[in-house]
């Protein structure tokens, strides 16, 4: 795959995206606490990777470290452009290989465990149809057409229930407290 990526072309880029999208999202999230900024930065990283695709040399190393370094540099550039400093915990002088980005961090592990508990509690308190929508729309990321077919409802109802579950979760005090802690 690395060699194909270096040769260029959309298919190779799509393949690399499929292989590394999750990692790039993880890396970018270390630089920005806002979900919106994370999404924007991820798009920027992939567009930059696409522009620099022909500059990647597989003889110098695998694609993943190249993407990791590119992600770190692009995120720093975006922060500099906004006259902002990277968050505490982001090394300013690590310009070698950004290896630190690969670490999940204990905060992630602890936070994820606490979130799982609270989401399970929240889901257990939902009416059955909403609990199913939570599973299908959020966990399985099915389309509204698929959810509607599965539940025997129309798409409009599926959208309504998904929105209802999301809003209820966003107003759940314990979930909000956990999410607020992760944002700070």
């Amino acid at each position, binding site marked *: 795959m690395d060699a194909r990526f270096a040769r260029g072309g959309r298919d190779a880029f799509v393949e690399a995206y499929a292989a590394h999208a999750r990692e790039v999202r993880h890396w970018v999230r270390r630089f920005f606490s806002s979900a919106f900024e994370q999404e924007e930065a991820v798009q920027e990283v992939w567009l930059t990777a696409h522009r620099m695709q022909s500059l990647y040399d597989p003889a110098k190393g695998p694609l993943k470290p190249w993407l990791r370094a590119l992600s770190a540099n692009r995120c720093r550039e975006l922060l500099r452009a906004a006259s902002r400093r990277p968050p505490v915990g982001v090394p300013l002088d690590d310009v070698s290989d950004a290896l630190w980005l690969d*670490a999940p961090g204990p905060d992630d592990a602890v936070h994820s465990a606490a979130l799982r508990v609270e989401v399970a509690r929240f889901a257990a308190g939902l009416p059955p149809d909403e609990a199913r929508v939570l599973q299908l729309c959020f966990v399985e990321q099915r389309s509204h057409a698929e959810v509607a077919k599965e539940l025997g409802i129309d798409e409009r109802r599926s959208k309504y229930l998904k929105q209802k579950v999301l809003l209820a979760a966003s107003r759940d005090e314990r979930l909000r407290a956990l999410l607020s802690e992760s944002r700070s």
Partner: protein
Amino acid sequence: MSLALFRERLEAGEVDAQVRAHLRSCDECRAHYDLLAQTARALGDDGAKAERERLFLNHPSPLVGEGRGEGARAGSHRRVLAIALAAGILLVAGVSLVLPPRATTPEVQLRGSGDATAAPFSLRVYGKDAPGQKVRLIADLPGAKEASVNPRAELQLFVKPAPKPGEVLLVELRAPLKSASLRSGPGDDLAPVGSAFGVGGFGPQARIEVCAALAPQATPTLAAALEAGSTQYCSTLLVTP
């Protein structure tokens, strides 16, 4: 006022280019969007589908034009690439600096131990200086040999690379008032070692010796590992206010 105008669209997930343009400049709307997005993430939607759609279907870039026979875009695509390549040539020296070297030595040696008998692993100490603070990388042992930690710090150890199947990293934390034994768990590239722990339990102004050794999975203790011939690597955490 602004959030009132956009709230319905944000909550319905109708975030098109126009809404995104607004979110870039409106703190209030962006805060609400962030809350919804993070909630959705907590529920299980990591945004992958929306991200992919936006990148490949909606972006007005060569990513959309390629492979679809959209000849009218080809010329502009070449111009964009030419400009990007020119910029890329200027950047390539910088890019080459950040590309990892084809090192044959273990990664931990890049951390500066310079020791020919360096450990075949990196024991990374992550932690919060106090409850509620952000997590940061505090030390990379045993290369760093010594690191300072706050008495209120909460720490979690990770080992990189993760031990091979059939192997485990055994760690002992030793201080005058307390000792603790930790074992590495499963992981892809980075594996947790034991659970998070508070530094305060080891006593104020303590020196916590951190010793680690790789051993077969069934090895019960660090002492047993050393008796069987494993090599121990030790460092010190200095508890300083």
